[in-house]
């Protein structure tokens, strides 16, 4: 959690050059075709607008200078404005043409960006459903073979170069899907199907914060996106489909019994065990994930202890209750959860 305390220090260099921050969460990441489109558009818009801006400002300054010279010379306008100076006239025409061309150029650029994104959506090879909940992300990978359907949470894996269609739904309030380095934003609206298509172009780990205020813990609702090569992605998928390993140590076994029969199982699912709750994040391979509590903190033993023991201190208002585990129960539960790689 050190990073949080030092956040203001990071802010300055981030603002100066966002691209230096490993593109973990950056609009300039360009890590997906969509973001590159945006980026290209951004540069074109910036260029065109900057050019026009410079021209306008230039003319303005020129005008001021001319005006002040004229006043110095005490030249009185003769009031023959209807007889435009031929130079003035061609300048006006040129100016209008320039603006017209600029606008048409921008329209064409955004039209093509839009087309190419729609094109990617048409060729989607992978279908994922992301459901927003207060305050976590429920992720389901669809497959033509239903037994390979994968349900996980808070960590989205995407293969490089594969157009992935993401269905966006919400179980409670409006959330918004936004992975700045890849694509977005797109809202998740209860009772409505939204979608977005992403073609990641390079491997990496990116952050996607919820981009629509969704309640008390909105700030602690983020998504970790792992983009990896296609073979790695398939390996990950196959691994995630495996049932949870049997606990081997007596401590982990005690934790297994508590988790699968106690309050945890009323909400959480752990594949291959009697815990089949569907109301909270799937825990089958929780220890293989990079973060805990929806991108709130890194996955490690200490954070697991803290989260399991007293989630209401770390994330007040979240739907994970503080159960009040006895110390030996807590050791067991954490030991068991750590085996869920």
């Amino acid at each position, binding site marked *: 959690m050190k990073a949080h305390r030092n956040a203001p220090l990071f802010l300055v260099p981030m603002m100066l050059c966002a691209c230096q921050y490993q593109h973990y969460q950056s609009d300039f990441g360009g890590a997906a075709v969509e973001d590159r489109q945006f980026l290209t558009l951004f540069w074109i818009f910036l260029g065109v607008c900057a050019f026009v801006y410079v021209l306008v400002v230039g003319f303005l300054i020129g005008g001021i200078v001319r005006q002040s010279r004229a006043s110095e010379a005490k030249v009185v306008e003769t009031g023959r404005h209807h007889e435009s100076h031929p130079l003035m006239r061609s300048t006006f025409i040129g100016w209008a043409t320039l603006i017209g061309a600029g606008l048409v150029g921008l329209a064409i650029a955004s039209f093509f960006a839009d087309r190419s994104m729609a094109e990617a959506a048409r060729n989607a090879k992978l279908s994922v459903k992301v459901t927003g909940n207060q305050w976590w992300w429920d992720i389901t990978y*669809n497959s033509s073979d*239903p037994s390979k*359907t994968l*349900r996980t949470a808070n960590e989205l894996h995407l293969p490089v170069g594969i157009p992935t269609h993401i269905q966006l739904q919400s179980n409670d309030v409006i959330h918004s899907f936004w992975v700045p380095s890849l694509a977005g934003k797109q809202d998740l609206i209860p009772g409505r199907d939204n979608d977005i298509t992403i073609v990641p172009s390079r491997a990496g780990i990116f952050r996607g914060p919820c981009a629509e205020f969704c309640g008390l813990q909105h700030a602690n609702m983020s998504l970790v996106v792992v983009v990896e090569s296609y073979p790695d992605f398939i390996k990950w998928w196959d691994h995630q489909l495996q049932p949870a390993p049997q606990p081997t140590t007596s401590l982990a076994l005690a934790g297994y019994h508590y988790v699968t029969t106690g309050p945890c199982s009323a909400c959480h699912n752990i594949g291959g065990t009697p815990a089949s709750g569907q109301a909270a994040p799937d825990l089958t391979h929780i220890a293989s994930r990079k973060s805990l509590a929806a991108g709130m903190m890194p996955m490690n033993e200490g954070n697991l202890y803290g989260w399991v023991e007293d989630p209401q201190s770390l994330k007040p208002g979240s739907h994970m209750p503080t159960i009040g585990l006895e110390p030996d129960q807590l050791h067991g539960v954490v030991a068991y959860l750590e085996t869920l790689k």
Partner: protein
Amino acid sequence: MPVGFASRQPLLGDVMQRVSGAYIVTILCSACAALTACNRSHQQQSGSATVYGSPPSGDHATRPAAASPRDDGNWVMPGKDYASTRFSGLNQITPQNIGKLGLSFTFSTGTTHGYEAPPLVVNGTMYLITPWPNYLYALDLTKPGAPQKWVFKPMPAAASQGVACCGTVNRGAVYDSGKIFFNTLDGQTIAVDANSGKQVWRTQLADIQKGETITMAPLVAGGKVLVGNSGGEMGVRGWLAALDEGSGKLSWRAYHTGPDKDVLIGPRFKPFYPMDRGKDLGVKTWGPDQWKIGGGPMWGWISYDPATKIIYYGTGNPGPWNAEQRPGDNKWATGVFARDVNTGEALWFYQTVPHDLFDHDDINESILADIPWKGGHVPALLRPARDGFFYVIDRRTGQVLSATPYGYMNGYKGVDLKTGRIAFNPDKEPKPGRITRDVCPAAPGMKDWNPSAFSPLTGLVYIAHHNLCEDIAVQQANYISGTPYVGADVKMYGGPGGYRGVVTAWDPIARKAVWEFKEDLPLWSPVLATAGGLIFYGTLDGWFKALDARTGKLLWQFKAGSGIIGQPISYRGPDGRQYVAVVAGVGGWAGGIVDGKLDARDPTAALGFANAVKDLPNKTTPGGMLYVFALPR
């Protein structure tokens, strides 16, 4: 000024109250007017038959002799015979003399939950099995007034009431070789000596901790007692078990989800359609682990062909109701199995509704009949299914010969006879986050468990069924063992035409209705057909009615003390006369609003059924009374 300020507030409040009062009165008045109008239209619709044709005159469906022998005057199993005809060969009571039919004797069972079981009659003794707490009564028919011989109280767990989805009902006991077999709500199968009322054996089969109960009537066939579990709304894993008739030991158990070895699928398994072929489909047509809590129970009717030693039955709905949570075809839920009764091996399977969307369990009766088909004769199953199609299936292979809607439907587009696959209407597919309106038939289907009767004399199947539609909204269901696993809010109401129930006389060969008798309330009662040319059934508000089997004309009716959902039977008494018996006791899914005192201001009560029978608490009260009728001496 503060005075003025203070006095303005209540004034405003007063006006608001008056406005809202007037508003409420207006709404109430218009609601009353609408209700009266509705009632009037219901009454106009019910009470007379609509005749579309006459029963087939030439070659028609007949019953197989081995499965449906000549009537001996007894009634030893709910389906009357292994062919599940519910046809009594007695013919003393006829359309000509039924006007004189009168009450012979009554008996109060002392329970007030939904009574779905038929009485059994074996050689001068009548047996009654009540809903929970599952008392088994024996009445002596040889003595005047049929006094009680004995009562057996199995003491099932009270907690089992909390996991029984749709009433604490019991669908009947069965008699074979000196013993009465029945199931208890908490999952036991019990054999009782038919003479002494002493327990012979009892076997615990289902586990209420997993949400399993047993409500079905067992079937005794080939020395086996066949029992399945209930709990498709509780995330159980469905099965059918066979117990040894003599000892009660488990002989085999076939699951309805999971790997082939659990489903008892082996080399003899030959489904007709490619969609039902493949290895371990009970695992591969589900999301990971979902088959373990996927439902597919068996709480309905089994038929048996003694000539081939094969049983036929259907499986219940996959769970949860929210189909989004269970991608795939969800085998082997919602389909028909043929199994070898000795080993339990599956012989063929036909999935009526792959990936069920509307809780359309396929546990309805399979009537064994031999039908004329394309110049020859085919041994067939006649199945008026919950999804609204009347299936005629070749029972040797599992091929669907015809599938025809026998009422109004819009949830399905039809059944492709080439692939066997049903086509959903995409407009009516429930999706999370929205309400799908006007889906017909509703969750209880065109017809629920209440079995139809087949008369070999007319060749017609007499179906008492619903005309109900529903609004449905699905959401993520959470699985906690022993609690409901549904994920849907449903609100049911009467379908087009202004009636909620109808008795249809169906010609399975011509694939059309011969006559229809419309009823105001939904029909939750089984049907009895007799050789005298009569049809008997009951209504939810307690009318016990007799119709002419050929024309559907109402010939006789009797008002019982409670709504009738129990199966009527007909038997020959020790005095040689023909009797008709039925138990009145409203309840079950349809009548739960009465015996469970549900509150219909919530349209989703009783999984949406309460809304369809809002008026029922004003028309009947709970009960549990046997009524036996006979002609005067």
